[in-house]
């Protein structure tokens, strides 16, 4: 193995792991906010049904 190779590998792994983790974190938060919006939609429908009745 060339000298210093573990440091090179570590740098590239850290960069890609970091970026992928951030992308995953964004996806999780987006999913959570979409779930919240779906719940709000349901509340809106219930209110609209209540107004009609």
């Amino acid at each position: 193995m060339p000298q210093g190779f573990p440091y090179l590998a570590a740098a590239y792994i850290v960069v890609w792991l970091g970026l992928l983790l951030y992308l995953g974190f964004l996806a999780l938060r987006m999913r959570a906010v979409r779930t919240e919006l779906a719940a709000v939609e349901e509340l809106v429908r219930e209110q609209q049904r209540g107004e009609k009745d």
Partner: protein
Amino acid sequence: MALANKETSAAGDLEGTRSAPQLTGSRLPLVSLILCALTVVGIALALWMAFFYAPTDAIEGQPQRIFYVHVPMAWLGMLSFVVMALAGILYLRRRDERWDWVARAAAETGTVFITLALITGSLWGRTTWGTWWTWDARLTTTLILWFVYVGYLMLRSYMGRTPASARAGAVMSIICVIDVPIIYESVNWWRTLHPTAEVGTPGALPFSVVLTLLVSLTAFTLLYAVLMIQAYQLQRTQTLAQRLRADLE
């Protein structure tokens, strides 16, 4: 890629709750798709060039290739803070909350990049200088920027999504952006261990190294744009969801 979905409602339509069903309707914007495709191609090319095209440094050996990820991370960490400051200025002038969403998105994304710049720099320093960290001017001013980013995120999280929070964030980013030119010039102003800027200096670096670095910078800047779009959409959706819930209550 699923993150690239874009809500179809305009921000102005969200005053009432009638537009709530539109919020979950999703559409993949063409711009995001093109940007993602260009990013994937650019990153693949940059990786290939970093490992197979660029020559191995005669003195530093293999660890010199860290340069091709470290420099883009540092560049984007600094660029993101400039974006935050510009968005802060525009927010204070126009009071348009979309600029605040840009600033929040840039703060998050910039923190990721500046953190990765510090880690990759530390790994390179260990192989070249024999130490993980030294209180060199470039390293210290970059660490200060990292603390500013973290402080900004803490402030915004503590103050919530209010106009006062947006104003405080804008003022903080406008004041603290002064650290960016200090980081850039630190290697010229003080005697430092950190190498000076060699790109653009005739004969300092072989053409293949400069070309690989430029491709890498372009590819990671495209990736930054992709992440910024996703982070902006998230900020926008979170604010709108909070507003809808407040309207219902």
